[in-house]
């Protein structure tokens, strides 16, 4: 069953009088519990597509349906509310709030939900245990390594038990060992927790962690590889 349905999607930006088409006539389905990697050259529109699916931006035309919700028609406030519950976002540079501890960073999105303190504590602890950082709860981002920060970022993304996790270059700022650990973690989330994951990456090795790779070029889908049909070129 498709949990993400993108239909006839157009996205363009205006720069002065000039109109720049970023995404054109794009259709995409992502199944529940699927791990999809979006690849393509710079400017191909992969981050834009990810932002649109995460409800961070609105399409120029077309529809995006996540679960049962058609999000392209939601207002900014409605989108914000929707995101809290349904989207977990993993950033390339972690983007943790430096003044908060790991626990508080993970708890942050839960503050926006009607949830008791005990429930919050349970969920935050659970999320940090999943990413294997239960012993670093009271550490601030400055006291953690890059890999640990990214794991806190992943814990923050899953703490609300979202419908979909979107990750924008999650391994881009990590060393190979940490990157591998982060990708393993994402795979674990998919396999153990049944999460649907969409990841933008330039790294073919990282993309191979996904079940499917979607290629974008000049704002259009140009092809897709499944795990079994990955060509050697992508592994280079």
């Amino acid at each position, binding site marked *: 069953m498709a949990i993400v349905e993108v239909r006839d999607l157009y996205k363009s930006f205006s720069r002065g009088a000039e109109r720049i088409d970023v995404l054109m006539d794009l259709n995409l389905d992502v199944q529940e519990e699927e791990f999809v990697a979006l690849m393509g050259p710079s400017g191909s529109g992969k*981050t834009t597509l990810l*932002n649109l699916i995460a409800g961070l931006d609105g399409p120029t035309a077309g529809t995006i349906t996540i679960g049962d919700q058609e999000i392209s028609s939601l207002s900014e406030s409605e989108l914000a*509310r929707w*995101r809290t519950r349904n989207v977990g976002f993993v950033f390339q540079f972690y983007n943790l709030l430096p*003044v908060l501890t790991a626990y508080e960073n993970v*708890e942050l*999105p839960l503050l926006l939900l009607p949830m*008791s303190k005990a429930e919050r504590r349970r969920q935050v602890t659970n999320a940090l245990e999943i990413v294997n950082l239960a012993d670093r709860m009271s550490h601030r981002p400055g006291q953690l390594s890059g890999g640990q920060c990214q794991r806190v970022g992943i814990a923050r993304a899953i703490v609300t038990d979202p419908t979909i996790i979107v990750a924008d270059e999650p391994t881009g700022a990590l060393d190979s060992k940490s990157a591998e650990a982060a990708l393993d973690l994402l795979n674990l989330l998919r396999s153990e927790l049944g999460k649907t994951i969409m990841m933008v990456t330039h790294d073919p090795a990282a993309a191979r962690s996904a079940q499917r790779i979607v290629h974008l070029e000049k704002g259009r889908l140009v092809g897709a590889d499944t795990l079994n049909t990955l060509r050697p070129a992508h592994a280079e």
Partner: protein
Amino acid sequence: MNPDMMMGQSGPDLSLMQTAIYGGAIMFGAIVIATVMACFTLPIFFGAMTLLSLGLRVLQNAPDPVGKSSKIGGLVFRSLRRNLLRTALTYVALFVLTWMLTGIYGMVKFLGDFTAEKEDSQLVIMSEKFSIPSQMPPGYANQLRGVIETLPPSNRPRPLSDEERVKKGVAPSPAGPIAAQELRELFGDDLPTDPANPKRRRFEQLAAEGVKENLMTWSFVGASLDPTKFTQENNLFLFALDPDAVTSGMMSEQGLNKEDLGEEGWTEMLRVINLVKEDKRNIVIGEDRLKIINKKVGDEVKFYSTNYKDITFECKIVGAFPAGSRLAGGAVMRYDYLLAKLDDYQKTEGAAHPQADRCLNLAWVRMPNKTSYQALAAKVNEPGKFNAPAAKMETFSAVVGSFLEPYKDIFWGMKFIIMPAIVCIMCLVIGITITIGVRERWTEMAVMKVLGFQPWQIMGMIVSEAMLIGVFGGMLSTWFLYFTPLLIRKGTKAVGLKFAFFDNFTMPWEIVIYGPILGIAVGLIGSALPSWNARKVKVSEVFAQVA
């Protein structure tokens, strides 16, 4: 208020350059003091912030929504703690600017109150109409008493009631007990006109006391302890007056009252004045002046008048006005001693002293209301009265108004240019600080939006940061400005801070409220633009730039 300012109609003749230099120096001094005070209050500011932050932390354990809101509120404090130097500098700037603004507001309001026409009790001043300094014949005092006696009962000065006497520490009236109710009944328009009527007789008795208690004369005597030279170290400026003016409370404005001197100080003042009443050669000198002329209480002094040529006074110092008080640099002697010396001169020289007919400088009358003042002024201005030389009658506020007339443009500029300019600068200071903070946290704002924070929540957090600094800057600044003079006044047991020629300068109490409100307002205005920008942050654009 110092009577010497009433010698003339206008203030000192300062050139624009001098005024600018004085103004600049005062401004600079005020900024330095305010900055020192701001630095001094920094621990209080950060202490209060920490306490509030701890309070929020405690509240985080409370059930939602309080607990949850406290967590989000805690973010505001943490953001302010990120860059302590910037937060401290912004606080100091706001403190100093509020200080300046409130200082100007307090001064303008103080002067405004002085010059405002009052409806109730009026202090009115009779002085020479066309000559500066005012010099009138001594007979004008009695003439004025006669004029007052012709006024209808409702317009006559009233003696203090027993209740007011107790409050002010004034001795009981020789006219017996006086109830406030009795004063209201007798000093009305329906009083019987028959002189034999007991009510009328009682009224006349009280009205005579009323004139005694509410009329005083001022004569100014300049003197030197050395007949051959006049220096800073040997000169003396004396007010020649009736000592009863002190005990009846007519010199309250000079700080000679129970409230300013305290119970003990006032009792001592009454003791000293009684000594002056005992012997006309007894005088009281201010402590500051005593130090300068190197004399002490108990010393006998001989001084030579500078404005009453060839008149010499032999006096005994029986008391001192407290240091720091309005009269600390001056002295008080008996008016009848001056008159006696002028009589002696006539006897020995065979001719009246040139100043004998010009020895009354001012006469003060406290009238019960504006109508009574107008009635008295109309009588004084009647043809044939007080015409050699011509005298005029003005309210105290009108005199102050005339004195301040040359400065009215400066006051206007302070009120309508400098004050709004300071508010604008405050908004700008806070705006710049918050803008820098927002720019530094641009990505964090975007992340919070991604996590689901509503635009208004982000905006609210930014505005709260600005308002927090603003409210503390405004509050601590105005509170220090209001309470410091009060404490100094209490500590020195003097008449209070002197401000130009005015006594008892205190900041208006409302600044205690206006300060925090101002802080909130400039916080709101200053953070409007940066918080709006933070609200509108485009997540996709921020991350596109980061990437």
